[in-house]
């Protein structure tokens, strides 16, 4: 299936979370922090810490680690 990563179409497989999908693509950094512009990636891996938040289908602050990839999904990461 296809998804859109920062507007670019990429091939993805089902049954994978956004977070692990990106990590496998060596995309460790998922966002920059609001105040100090520091890079962050996944920390807790289970939806608790909200460090892995990215924009998914225009909705901000979605936890990459617990969001499953869907065909056509649009993911915005800042790195």
């Amino acid at each position, binding site marked *: 299936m296809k998804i859109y990563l920062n507007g670019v179409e990429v091939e993805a497989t089902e*049954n*994978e*979370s956004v*977070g*692990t*999908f990106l*990590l*496998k693509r060596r995309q*460790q*950094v*998922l966002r920059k*922090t*609001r*105040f*100090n512009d*520091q*890079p*962050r*990636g*996944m*920390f*807790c*891996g*289970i*939806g*608790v*810490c*909200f*460090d892995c*938040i990215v924009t998914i289908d225009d*909705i901000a*602050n979605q936890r990459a*680690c*617990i969001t*499953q990839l869907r065909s056509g999904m649009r993911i915005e990461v800042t790195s």
Partner: protein
Amino acid sequence: MSRTIIVGGGPSGMSAAVEIARAGGDAIIIDSNPRLGGQYWRHAPVAKFSHDGERFFALQEEINRHPGIEVRAGTQVWRASYQEGVATVWLNDGTSLTSETLLVATGAYDRSLPFPGWDLPGSMTAGGAQAILKASGALLGRAVFVAGTGPFLLPVAASLVEAGVKVLGVLEANRVNGWVNHLGAIDLRKMKDAARYFKILSAAKVPIRMGYAIIEARGDGRIEEVVIAKVDRNFTVKPGTVEVHKCDAIATGWGFTPDLTIAHSLGVSTDVHPIDRSVVVHVDAFQESSQHGIFAAGESTGVGGVDLALTEGRVAGIAIAVQRGLISTVEAKNRSVGLASERTKIRKFADALLSVYKIREGWRSWLNPETILCRCEEVTFKQVRNVVHDLGASDVRTAKLLSRCGMGMCQGRVCGRMVADVIGAEIGTPATDDELRGIHNRPIANPISLQTLADQGQ
């Protein structure tokens, strides 16, 4: 009577559901994960377990077979309430459910301690490293350290080794002598597990260093090296023992924090655990809380591992069946043979582990003024000290509200306890039991779309 609501589809929730099903009852399991299994049985959809898959498949098979059990996976409870004997949960798909019986099986998450650089990409919790590996084979890095305290560090390091990660060391901050024997005291399975982990680690020549900790992580935009040091029995760094090592990731874990968010919203009484001061649901012998019809099992009643979670889940499931009039108390007794003593035995063992792998106060000496305590709001140690010493905050809540520590998206799940300890130390009196309870007060358990909320009113 409406079907029982089970919040959490981990070992405890699953085993409770099976008991309810066996008694001819019905239940709905809600879990935010896409699949059943909780933290322990986190797995890819085409399940491939390194071990202990049989128990999972047996439970899953029985749940799937029984028409009375519905599994709503990939769904979060964002709010829960209890009024006049009825529990209501609101789900992030915009629906809500009510029932006279509800099981809190929300489990636990890694407890974390801060140190300079713990917020760098490449730094994960031990459970998180394990979770992404189990769920999809993702690796947190290529050359990593596993550090913290607790028996859980070993399986994490072993899984990473098996997955081909170079584990540069397992650093256990506590000094634990003869702990394999300790584990052996409980049952053969634990003993075998531990022996297996040691075998994997020693085959890979992974150094296991007792009394060591990661005290700093460094790197330009991601972890490039760590500073490790020998610590004394109080976790204070021993002078002259500092080493710097290259690595690209770290997994740190300091035991677990029971997730009390839903329990707190339901208004159940809680205990503060005498050993580690974690807040746990107070339950009776039947796993029923102070609120009639609200039961709790697994880590939410105290961290004890998968076997305790399974046992408590069964006890709760049987008790729920009795309360719903599905089986008699005599029948319940027959179904419960051995459960109570099993529970006592494991609980005792779990408490012994908690004492051995306690977090000692000296960890605060690893902080420097610029160390981030609250990852969400980027609040530093210095800022927290400032609201106490300059602005006169004299309790945890005020310090939090004035510094924004714990006010971010995780709602203090990660930093709440640790910040309470820091503030307690700065003020000079430890956080009270009620202050520790207050950390779990999150009326909105998970963020909910404003649109979903607005549509609910229609």
